[in-house]
């Protein structure tokens, strides 16, 4: 849209300012990762590379990243399956209770994490009597990740319509073949976008995780929470945060590219 010059400049300036504010604390984190202060004090009293070296040798940190990735991957996979099924059902059929189900999907993300956390904690331990473990974390995460997949997929389905599926049936393909060869490939980038968001949500979740993680299950946020209390560990956490932010460019960029190329294909 063509705006007046003043409006353009104002908007651009506001955007730039917000971005500065977004990145300011991250710069502080970056600075801390090189700071000789162990307590994230400002301004950094000195420069050191010690934390970077230690971070990459910290088995605990690396384990925690591994655990977080594992949890996020499984939770995302479950969310992808369930979210896709539910969006197919809600988008392709009209039935009684449809609104209730769409509300049900939104609920786990709309209710504060601490409620989901204590509800599941109580449910697993007290009601079912299963000990908390990595699987209880996965179940909890998958539950609130469904919605991101659901929203992405249902939006895509809405846009796709049923034409392509009808064309496939018309050419002789059965229900399953149609899904495999036509519907699924069309959903792929929506699944990617939803999956990425689900992964990010799970990866950074602390509250629900606190209540559903068994002993010895240390996801990255839990590791960070624990290490914030430890002497000499805070700067290592800063290093991890910096690395994660930088590494995250790759999946975000890829997702952007994929959905971008999809747009030009449309």
């Amino acid at each position, binding site marked *: 849209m063509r705006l007046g010059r003043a409006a353009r400049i104002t908007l651009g300036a506001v955007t730039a300012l917000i971005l500065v504010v977004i990145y300011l604390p991250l710069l502080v984190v970056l600075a801390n990762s090189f700071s000789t202060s162990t307590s994230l004090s400002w301004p950094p009293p000195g420069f050191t590379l010690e934390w970077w070296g230690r971070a990459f040798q910290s088995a605990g940190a690396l384990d925690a990243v591994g655990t977080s990735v594992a949890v996020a991957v499984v939770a995302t996979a479950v969310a992808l399956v369930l979210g896709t099924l539910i969006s197919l059902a809600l988008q392709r059929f009209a039935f009684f209770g449809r609104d209730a189900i769409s509300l049900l999907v939104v609920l786990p993300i709309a209710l504060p994490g601490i409620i989901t956390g204590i509800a599941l904690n109580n449910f697993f331990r007290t009601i079912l009597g299963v000990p908390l473990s990595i699987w209880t974390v996965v179940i909890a995460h998958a539950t609130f990740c469904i919605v991101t997949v659901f929203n992405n997929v249902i939006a895509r389905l809405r846009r796709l319509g049923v034409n392509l599926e009808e064309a496939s049936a018309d050419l002789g393909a059965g229900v399953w073949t149609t899904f495999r060869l036509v519907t699924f490939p069309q959903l792929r980038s929506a699944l990617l976008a939803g999956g990425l968001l689900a992964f990010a949500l799970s990866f950074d979740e602390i509250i629900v995780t606190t209540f559903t993680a068994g002993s010895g299950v240390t996801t990255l946020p839990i590791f960070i929470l624990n290490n914030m209390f430890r002497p000499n560990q805070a700067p290592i956490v800063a290093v991890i945060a910096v690395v994660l932010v930088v590494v995250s460019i790759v999946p*975000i960029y890829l997702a952007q590219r994929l959905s971008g190329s999809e747009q030009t294909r449309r």
Partner: protein
Amino acid sequence: MTSAHTTRRAPALPRASAARRGSAFLTAHPRVRLGLLLAAPLFWLVVVYIVALVLLLVTAFWTVDSFTGEIRIDWTLDNIVTVLTGALYQTVTLRTVGVAAAVTVIDVLLALPIAFFMAKVAGPRLQRILVIAVLMPLWASYLVKAYAWRSVLSQDGILEWLLAPLGLHTPGYGLTATIITLSYLWLPYVILPIYAGLERVPDSLLEASSDLGGRTWRTMRSVVLPLAFPAIVAGTIFSFSLSLGDYITVNIVGGASQMLGNLVYTNVGAANNLPLAAAIALIPIVIIFGYLALVRRTGALDNL
């Protein structure tokens, strides 16, 4: 050319295989198809989530042995009454809702210009860069960012350093700091749906408005905002609900303040009083349900 030898006969449709019979059956019976689609997710959501939630709420009507900390199934309204009448809970609820509302308003005010710039002003390249720039901080852990704000907001932090020459001071730790930090933490979650919503507003509508004499501000107010409204509401669901349940950020930058999340957390994590915690949890549940009921008709839930 070998093609000359191929007989051009219609290839038979692969009839009567089990899969095909299944397909035919499913095509003729949409209700069965629906049932198959819904079975697994509904089982998951209802059995895992709804049952757990209902059981938690039921617990609110139980009681806890004050010494051993074991839950006893003695039906009582005490917890509910405590929560409804206790001055502590009223104060904290008001404070929490206030913080959540402030965070939501701030986030929407910040998200609108940046989302608008991304969706409607920036070229495709800049747009892509901006999306990445907005998404990237999501990957720096929540805790790390909260601690970073603790550092920024402290008495000799960057903010003080920046503001002092202007004769201003950092707000220090407290509710203001909590609001600032929460706004920061949830901002990307608010920007994304609004950005997506604005992208869906056809450019031609903005052009039509300016064509009819609407200046930039008027176009924003009369055309952009109403059309992006469902997306804005979707964004507020994130910021509002996430703020409503938070207890970690307020611990880090909130100074001496506590919010509903702290009360729930103290009661379940510390005092080991799950029934009371469940009763307190009812407050945000009721608030969120009320909010969802309010915004449902705007179509916001489709924009999350």
